């Protein structure tokens, strides 16, 4: 009974006047965010439905039609093995987006607990974790990811796990800073007085109130992760043939750049569009979720 009343006051910002309605009013007030979301849903939907949407099998080789320009049969032309570029773009999108999501998930899974512990326990634990965070942040991100991938073994999953590892300190630092603020709040004190265990305090009261900046950062990180996937696959450390990703397509296009420059336009542009959309969505979420920008009500 008592915990219920305490928790309702702690999270009342999160579940009042209906999440759906708030999302709707946010999107109506911010056309750029709505457009970004639409673009992302379209790209993600196409990627998820790749086997049904793509006009050809992405691995099907047609050696009589190699390195052709756009035509009615192949809207974006064919690559050096006569494979349909559009189909590869659609299938590659699935891998690229999976890679970005994987990296950000790993970052959240490592960063959130680390930040919560540092901010909540305090003392030497905090000092130790904070120094670790500072140190990781001074590593050039892609370089560290390249080195960790090398040590763990080349491949898309390992590569994106490394990227997640490199992102984790950013999340941890954000959560730590918010936790330091939130743990001083009255409702956390109250819950503690009622005998809530530390785990319950963290999960039920601290985390929900510390998560907003992390939601924003994760959206922005999706764009960075997408670019990281492209980089690592371009270097040959990410996706391995016959699998395809946007980065791997650019790498392929690079080889035939002087012959058919059109090969590399599409994957680069789609990466840019997706990254712009993630960034715009993140920036919009920042204002929408900012507790100081919204009236208390």
């Amino acid at each position: 009974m008592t915990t219920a009343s305490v928790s309702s006051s702690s999270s009342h910002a999160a579940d009042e006047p209906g999440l759906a309605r708030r999302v709707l009013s946010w999107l109506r007030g911010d056309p750029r965010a709505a457009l970004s979301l639409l673009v992302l849903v379209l790209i993600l939907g196409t990627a998820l439905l790749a086997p049904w949407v793509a006009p050809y099998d992405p691995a099907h080789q047609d050696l009589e039609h190699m390195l052709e320009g756009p035509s009615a049969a192949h809207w974006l032309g064919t690559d050096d093995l006569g494979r349909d570029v559009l189909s590869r773009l659609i299938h590659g999108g699935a891998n690229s987006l999976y890679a970005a999501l994987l990296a950000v998930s790993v970052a959240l899974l490592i960063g959130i607990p680390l930040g919560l512990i540092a901010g909540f326990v305090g003392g030497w634990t905090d000092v130790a974790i904070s120094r670790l965070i500072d140190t990781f942040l001074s590593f050039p991100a892609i370089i560290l990811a390249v080195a960790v991938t090398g040590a763990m073994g080349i491949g898309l999953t390992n590569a994106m796990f490394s990227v997640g590892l490199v992102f984790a300190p950013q999340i941890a630092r954000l959560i730590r800073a918010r936790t330091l603020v939130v743990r001083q709040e009255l409702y956390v004190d109250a819950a503690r007085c009622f005998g809530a265990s530390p785990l319950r305090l963290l999960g039920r009261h601290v985390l929900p109130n510390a998560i907003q900046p992390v939601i924003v950062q994760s959206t922005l990180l999706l764009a960075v992760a997408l670019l990281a996937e492209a980089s690592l696959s371009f270097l040959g450390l990410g996706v391995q043939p016959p699998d395809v990703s946007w980065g791997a397509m650019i790498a392929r296009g690079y080889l035939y750049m002087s012959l058919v420059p059109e090969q590399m336009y599409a994957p680069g542009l789609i990466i840019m569009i997706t990254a712009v959309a993630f960034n715009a969505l993140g920036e919009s979420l920042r204002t929408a979720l900012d507790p100081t920008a919204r009236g208390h009500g």
Partner: protein
Amino acid sequence: MANRVKQRMVAARLLQALPILVLATFIVFCLMQLIPGDVAVTLAGENASMERIQQIREAYGLNQPFLVQYGQWLAHAAQGELGTSLLSGEPVAHTIARTFPNTLLIAVYAVLVSVLVGVPLGILAATRAGSPLDSTIMGAASLGVAVPNFWFGMILVLFLALGLQWFPATGFVSPLEDFSGALWYATLPALALCTNGIAEVARQLRGSLVEIQSSQHVRTLHAKGLSPARILWKHGLKNVSVNLLTVVGLLFNKILAATVVVEAVFAIPGIGSSIVNAVLQGDFPVVQGAVLAMVVTVILVNLCTDLACTVLDPRIHA
């Protein structure tokens, strides 16, 4: 009095950098431990005899306790002994000395271009905040952040090197041998790297300038009848410069990291491409040494920008 406070802050910052430096070396050392299986077997290469593996184990001190190994490695690293490449047998320190200047040239070049282009754009956007020009600049900035820089590099090669033939498409000369020639080769890579930097500098500068312009004391200056240009210069940019220095410090880290891919596009023998080649071929001493060199550089650059901020910051007066 003010000096005393600043001295203390500088000393504190220096002390703070020390544990980070040590931790960073520890992390780099731990990288070797991530390799699955027996490191000695990996280092010995395929088809190595048991004796060879045993030799390597002793040579690298792999039979010692972990922390002892770390201590020995750190002591060697501090003297510039980073082992030898498994493939070429070249001392890793030589590899770094040969490749790092190339990478540094591109990175510094890109940072300079970022600042030289980003600052005017940021000022322009801030002074005309809300105008079409402002939204054009900020729109371009959001593209600049999102473009994969190695892909942009390829586009530059396509148009400026293969098309117009203004610049060489690939290759490099060492800046230590022929500086102007090196600049010539470094121009396209630097341009490819600087999109992100220009965008970030312009955004940050615009943001802080707009904030300052709407502050009480600047509005008072307007009311006093000072010209906007004078206000911008004396009160805006002076306050923002410290901020900008921090941005540039962080930018250096990002751009240095991004060189790894751009070097691959332009076939530049830099430290990034030696890391990638070493990773692809399992040459772990090179990976370890080169990553160490980069991380130490970044920590030192961060330290320098922080110190410069402390010294320059007009707010620190006690």
